């Protein structure tokens, strides 16, 4: 186990590695069906989350739908 320093939704964060994006969502308690993940500015399809490793220095955005006009 190693600690990976990443930027998550604009803030620095340490996550336990090795981890995939799917692992990260699980650790955050998020349902992959209602969020969209952007990994170093690339959108990662849901089916690819488990196969995409998190690396030190990654910038990850997790977004969802909120109220808006």
């Amino acid at each position, binding site marked *: 186990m190693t600690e990976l320093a990443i930027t*998550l*939704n*604009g803030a620095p964060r340490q996550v336990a590695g090795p981890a995939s994006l799917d692992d990260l969502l699980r650790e*955050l*308690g*998020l349902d992959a069906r*209602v*969020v*969209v993940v*952007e990994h170093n*500015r690339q*959108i990662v*399809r*849901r089916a690819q989350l488990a196969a995409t490793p998190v690396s030190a220095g990654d910038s990850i*955005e*997790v*977004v*969802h*739908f*909120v*109220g*808006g*006009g």
Partner: protein
Amino acid sequence: MTVDTPFELGGREFQSRLMVGTGKYRTNDEMVAAINASGAEIVTVAVRRVDLDRANDAGILHHLPADRYFLLANTAGCYTADEAIRYARLAREAGFNEFIKLEVIGDKETLLPDVEGLLTATRQLAGEGFKILAYTNDDLITALRLEDAGATAVMPLASPIGSGLGLINPFSIRTIKRRLSVPVIVDAGVGTASDACVVMEQGVDGILMNTALAQAREPVAMAHAMRLAVEAGRAAWLAGRMPKREVAMPSTPEVGMLA
């Protein structure tokens, strides 16, 4: 009697010509009740970061089942074409549909659109297969260029977002509607039911509103009023109003009066 046709938008048909936003409601329950009272089928949502400090933050989808509402994501808050394109792609990845309400804002105080950025983003996203509803000002030339750029619908404003000032320039809206082939949906500025009615009386295809419902004293009651106003305005447009005259014309016969 002229029977209205369904509202067609990007190959889909809708019964309601009223579209509503989901922002600024006091509670989610009130939002859902207002949407249902409005009769709207198309409901706008925005893309934002998940708040990681709020555990089990379900977002808004929990309250808006996608089999019941047609979710139209917007790019509100984007100030450049690149930013709006990024948000549009994220929204599409959420997996509901390829429609996007495209906003590229040019000015923080008025929230008026950045026309250059809007056209750039429209061209790019149309090429990627998006169906774009472009929020724009009430300028005919911009509306024509958006249509040429591949917009599915053009959404000129009645007045600035959240202002509630109503329809400032009916002439511009009528001109845009007359000259465009794609649907024209008036977006932003409606404050109360008469505003919505006047907008629909210009012959546009639909109307989108948010603040007028969310910030009414009673959003559910206002949503009901807006539903009636949109239906009344549309019906009046289909009926064809009488010509305006600068002089009076008696509606009672003048023959047969007592001598």
